[in-house]
Every structure is written in structure tokens, then in C-alpha cells.
């Protein structure tokens, strides 16, 4: 394994691990806060039990999110020192801003998780709201930094170095708004549907108390609305990619040849050698229509980009199909659930509950796939059009060693997390809503 490949794999693995916990860290606090607020409003103890139960399990996930994030902030230098040397001054301020968001998040999370007996409920709920807000801000800010790597802006290039940095233009780079919005929606959609799926499963297993019904309702609400919005946001994001990163778009859509009235390829495994897309269903003119609302519009294909600047087409195309496919299925699940809810039969439709349970991981699948589209689709560039990934990598040899080490470490951690959380879930199942005594430690 070459050092470059090892470094890319280590980055991808660390990010792919972190994002799972980060996303839960964004959305879970909102759900806990809603449950606690319902308790204050209705006085129903099942809501309080729910808020506490969620908080106790989520505390583990928050901690793993925080430590894996720390690894990332060092890895930017450990793996890509030349990138950070070049771009640190440009995207660094965004990360510093992020640092403050982490601070408020961690502080009020501590207050929320450990402060059940120290604070009045209104203050406690306020702490939960602050945690949610800072989580959303940190997700948006870090995605903005990533957006800058896609559409670098806000500086002048002279002698191969950045000059005249304009921080505001960096923060408002063309990708920033759409990408951050898409990411934040993804966080709520994925976490909401995951939690909904878990509680749907427990209801199927015979837990028929209010605890699980409330949980399902809150999770569906928090996950469902963003899921529906996600297709709009994704569509807008695709158009931004088409405008600024034509090679990435062509790879996403497996479009080898520039053409008016471009066809849409559903599925398929693009072959770079023969420039064809075997096993795909070709729908004439649909791509032009989707992108430009005009069936005759010309869409730039990969032939506009020199071959050495192509991203790996097959990976990007398949990942894009997985994300969009997962998004469609999630939307159907949400609409189905909404319809049953309106009929007042949400908790009785066993088929729906099974579908929700099986669809629980879909949002996370979409997130991982979406990041593969963004990151692999940007290759061979680390800063699009400016710096190649191969120019950025550390001179340190033997990167395969830390890569394997972190992979094993994270693998073990993932197993332990799954095991611990499943103990939490099965404890909930057995006791219905257990009489939480004392502090949530």
C-alpha cells in the first residue's frame, strides 16, 4: 500500500467513523429536549423517563464523537501537513469558530447529562436547546470548510501561494450554503429514522406502553421532516456541483460524453476503459431535464476533463446512486408513516413497523455514501483545481501502520459501543420505562 493510499484510507476511515457519532451528537439532543419539554407540558412521567433513557445511552456516543473528532483535527496535520501549511490560514478561522461551538456544546452537554438534579426543568431544557444549536453550528461550519475545498474562494493566487485572504468570501464560498444545509438535514434525518426504527422494533417485540409510542412519534417527527426536505436540498446541491465541479458531476452521473439532451443512468457499473455504463437503465434526456429544466440542455461529460484529472468514476457513481436510492426509500417510509399517523393507526400497522425497523440504518448509509461522492468525487484534488492530494501528503513513510492501528482501534470501539448500546436497549425493553433513580451517571 503506498503512503498516499494509506493516508487517504486513514482519513476516510477516521471521518467515516466520526461522522456517525457527530451526526447523532447533532440530532439526539433535540429529541431529548423535546421529550423533556413534553414532560413539563403534560406531566406524563413516560416522557421524562424517555428523555433520561436517551440521555444516558447518548452520553457514550457523545464521548466517542468528541475523541474521534480530536483525532481528526490532528490528522489534518499528521497526514496532510502541506495542505495545512498552504490552507491553514484560510480555513483555520472556520475551525477556530468550530472550536467555540464545541465548547458551548460540551459545556452544556455536561450540564444537561449530569444536571438533572441541579437545575430547574426550564433551565435544563434551555441547556438542551443550547447543545442542539451548537451542534448544528459546528456541523455547518466544518462542512463549510469542506465546501471551500470543493470551491476554493476568497484569496488571490500568486507564485503558487495564497495572498490577500478575504475571510468573508472564504465562508461564503459557492458550495458552503447548500452543502451545510444538506449535511444538517442529513444529521436529523438519519438519526431520527434510526431511533424510530429501534423503537418500532421494540413495539413489534411487544412493548406497548407509552414510552415507546412517544419515542417513535418524536423520532419520526425529528427525522421525517428533514427527510422530506432532503430531496429538495440534494437537488439544489447537485446543480451547484454541476456549475462548479463538472468532472465530479459527470462521474456522479457516469456521463462520459458531453451531449445535448443527456440521458440519466439508473444503476450500472461505469467502465472507464470502454467509457460505457454496463448494467444501467438509460432514461433519455432525463439528466438534462433534472439539471437545467430543459430536455435539450447540454451537460458536460468527462471528455471535457483530461483523463489524469478524472475521479474514480465507478466509485462516485455507485455511491451517488446509493445515497439517492436510500433517500427515496426513506421518503416513502416517512410518507407511509405520516399517512398511518393521520389515520391514528401508526402503532398497529405491523408491516410499517417492520419497514421502519429494517430501514433504520438507511440514513447512515446515505451519509457515508454522500461523503464518498463529495470526497472521492473531488479527486485527484485536495483543493479543487489548485492542489493535488498527492502534493499534500506527509513525507512520513509507513503510514500503513497508523492506518491499520486506528482501524483496529475504531473497529474494537465500534463493537464495544454497539454492545453497550444494545444493553441499554434491551434494559429498556425488559423494564418498559425503568424507574430511573438518582442521577444519570
Amino acid at each position, binding site marked *: 500500500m503506498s503512503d498516499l493510499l494509506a493516508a487517504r484510507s486513514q482519513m476516510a476511515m477516521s471521518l467515516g467513523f466520526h461522522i456517525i457519532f457527530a451526526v447523532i451528537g447533532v440530532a439526539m439532543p433535540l429529541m431529548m429536549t423535546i421529550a423533556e419539554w413534553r414532560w413539563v407540558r403534560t406531566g406524563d412521567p413516560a416522557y421524562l423517563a424517555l428523555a433520561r433513557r436517551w440521555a444516558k445511552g447518548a452520553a457514550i456516543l457523545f464521548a466517542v464523537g468528541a475523541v474521534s473528532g480530536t483525532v481528526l483535527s490532528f490528522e489534518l496535520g499528521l497526514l496532510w501537513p502541506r495542505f495545512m501549511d498552504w490552507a491553514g490560514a484560510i480555513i483555520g478561522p472556520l475551525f477556530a469558530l468550530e472550536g467555540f461551538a464545541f465548547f*458551548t456544546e460540551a459545556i452544556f452537554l455536561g450540564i444537561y447529562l449530569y444536571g438533572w438534579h*441541579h437545575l430547574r426543568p426550564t433551565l435544563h431544557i434551555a441547556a438542551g436547546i443550547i447543545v442542539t444549536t451548537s451542534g448544528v453550528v459546528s456541523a455547518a461550519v466544518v462542512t463549510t470548510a469542506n465546501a471551500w475545498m470543493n470551491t476554493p474562494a476568497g484569496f488571490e493566487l500568486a507564485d503558487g501561494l495564497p495572498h490577500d485572504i478575504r475571510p468573508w468570501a472564504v465562508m461564503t464560498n459557492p458550495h458552503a450554503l447548500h452543502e451545510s444545509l444538506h449535511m444538517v438535514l442529513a444529521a436529523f434525518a438519519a438519526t431520527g429514522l434510526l431511533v424510530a426504527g429501534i423503537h418500532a422494533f421494540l413495539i413489534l417485540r411487544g412493548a406497548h406502553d407509552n414510552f415507546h409510542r412517544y419515542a417513535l412519534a418524536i423520532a419520526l417527527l425529528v427525522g421525517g421532516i428533514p427527510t422530506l426536505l432532503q430531496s429538495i436540498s440534494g437537488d439544489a446541491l447537485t446543480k451547484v456541483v454541476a456549475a462548479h465541479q463538472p468532472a465530479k458531476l459527470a462521474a456522479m452521473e457516469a456521463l462520459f460524453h458531453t451531449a445535448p439532451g443527456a440521458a440519466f443512468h439508473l444503476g450500472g457499473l461505469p467502465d472507464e476503459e470502454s467509457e460505457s455504463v454496463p448494467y444501467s437503465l438509460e432514461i433519455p434526456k432525463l439528466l438534462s431535464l433534472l439539471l437545467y429544466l430543459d430536455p435539450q440542455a447540454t451537460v458536460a461529460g468527462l471528455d471535457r476533463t483530461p483523463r489524469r484529472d478524472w475521479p474514480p468514476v465507478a466509485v462516485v457513481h455507485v455511491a451517488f446512486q446509493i445515497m439517492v436510492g436510500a433517500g427515496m426509500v426513506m421518503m416513502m417510509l416517512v410518507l407511509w408513516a405520516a399517512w398511518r399517523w393521520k389515520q391514528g393507526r401508526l402503532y398497529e400497522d405491523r408491516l410499517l413497523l417492520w419497514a421502519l425497523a429494517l430501514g433504520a440504518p438507511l440514513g447512515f448509509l446515505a451519509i457515508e455514501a454522500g461523503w464518498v461522492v463529495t470526497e472521492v468525487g473531488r479527486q485527484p484534488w485536495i483543493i479543487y483545481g489548485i492542489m493535488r492530494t498527492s502534493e499534500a501528503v506527509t*513525507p512520513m513513510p509507513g503510514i500503513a501502520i497508523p492506518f491499520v492501528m486506528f482501524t483496529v482501534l475504531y473497529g474494537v470501539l465500534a463493537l464495544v459501543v454497539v454492545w453497550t448500546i444494545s444493553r441499554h436497549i434491551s434494559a429498556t425493553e425488559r423494564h418498559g420505562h425503568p424507574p430511573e433513580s438518582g442521577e444519570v451517571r
Partner: protein
Amino acid sequence: MTLDILLAGMLLGALVFYVLTGGADFGAGVWTLLARGKRGHLHQALIDRAIGPIWESNHVWLILIVTILFAGFPRAFAVITTALHIPLTALLVAIVLRGSAFVFRTHDVRPRSDHDASQVFWRRIFAGSSLVAPLMLGTTIGTIASGRLSERLPSFFELFVAPWLAFFPLLVGCFTLALFVSLAAIYLILETADPLLQEDLRRRALVLWIIVSSLGGIVLIESRTGAPVIYDGLAHTGGGRAILGLTAIAGLVTLAALLLRRFRTARAAAAAQVILIIFGWAVSQYPYLVVPNVRLPEAAAPDQVLRLLVWSLLIGGLVLFPSLFYLYRVFKAHALFAPPADR
């Protein structure tokens, strides 16, 4: 004062906060090693209760340090993360294990007995990683100060191992560890009302006082060859000598206060000593960010970025400090805000 110095000062401030808070959390983790025997479970419970609500917040100082470093002084960040890849990776592994082991142990659904195999396992991981992290952090700082990151022969060993695998950096690592552990012992005294626990901790703090003082002396003597820039700054300038003198006084006050059971005074003096040590290092290393080839002001980001960072930190501080105050007010009222009479 120019912007680069202002920002470097803020970086140093963040480091002080990290050492005083996050550093002590690592130290407390190391004390789990001794939480055995008759009162072992009481010590363990005390440590868990003391760091539970705050360690994640304290940890964010480190993240702030890293981000200020790469935003304001990208060259320094690149040099450090390249040459110190190995100790920094070890630091990261320790950070990951420390945090995860702590939550796995304290957030299990059904509270289990202290002797449960998984509890024992996670406690060991927690303690071991709390021990490795300060060592690596100190080694990193020792290397930065030592001047061993200069141009070297292009061999793997010379570039990536020799700079830090040397007597002086490792000595600074040990000193850092001892400092964190001793801070933790002194803080913990004020977290409990149990006189027996207090007495245990006081004895440990006294032992640690001896270790910290001797290691501190050795670091100073060794810096003569190990980190000449630091030695010159401390021993050959008026300011440096003044800082050394004050550090020694703070040490003696800590000792006296521990002997007299004036624990609040001991805590204040120990914290002052840490601040002086960090300050002394920084002042004598100025204008180097990394000795001997990354210097201020050349290594700083352009002024518009520095200005943005300084303002963000100032405005961010307006949110951060009241929030931190509130956090400590809620959970540390007994140790920080209660009148001294009832300790």
C-alpha cells in the same frame, strides 16, 4: 504589541487553561491506579464524580489550541505534526482510549460491582491511557523547545524518531506527567468531605511534591544541554531569573500549605506554579514557535487572518467564560465557591 504576539499569547493562555483543567483530569485518571485496598472504591467514586461532568469541556481547550495553531501559525503546525507524527499518534490513541474507557465504565446500564471483570478492564485502560497522554504531550513540548527539529540527515530515524526519542524531551514528558498527577491530588482533596480520603490524598500530594520538585530541578539543569535556548532565557536574563524565583516560591507555598492543611492555598499555589512554568518556557523560547527554525513573525498567518482570529477569540471568550463559569458553578460549587470554613 503586534497581532502575532497577541495571538501567540492567547494560544499560551489556552494552554494554561488546558493544563490546569484537562491536565488534572488526566492526573485523576492516573490516580485510579492507586484506587485499591480498603478505601479504593471510595477513591474511585470520588474521581468519577469529580471529572464526570467536566472532562469533555476541559478537553476542548486542546482542540482550541490545535485550531489556533493551524489557523494562526500554519507553518508551526505543519512542522510539528510532520516530525512528531509518532508521539502525537500515541497521544491520540491515549486520548481516544481514555475518553471511551471512562464512559464505557460509568455509563453502563446496570451498575455493576467494582470487581466485575469488565469494570476492572476499563479501569485499567482508563488509568493506563491517562498516564500515556501527559507523557506524550510533555515529550512533544520538550522536543519543540529542544531545537532538535532542525535540518537533519534524510533518514527515517533522523527525521521522525531522533528528535523526540532523546533524554531531554522524555524528561519533560515525565515532568509533565508528575505535574498533572500532583495537580489532581491537590484538587481532589477539596472535592471530598471525608477526612480519611483527604488524609490519603494529602499524603500522596506530599510525595508528588517531592517528585515534581526534583524533576523540575533536573529539567532545569538538563536544559543547559538539552534545550539551550530555554536555559539561556531562564538563567541568563533578569526576567527569567525572576520567573524561576517565583516558581520556587510557589512550590514552597504549596508545600507549606499542604503541611498546614490549608488546601485552598495549596491549590492556588500549585496552579500559580504551573502558570509560571509555562510562562517561563514561553518567554525564554520567544520568538521561536518551534526551535530553531520557525519564528515569529515570519511564521504567522497574514494580518487580516490574525485580526479575525484575535477578534473571534475575544468575542468567543465573552460566551465561553460565562458558560464555563456556569458549568463550574453548577458542579463544583462545593470545591470552588463554598466559603472556606466548610471547605
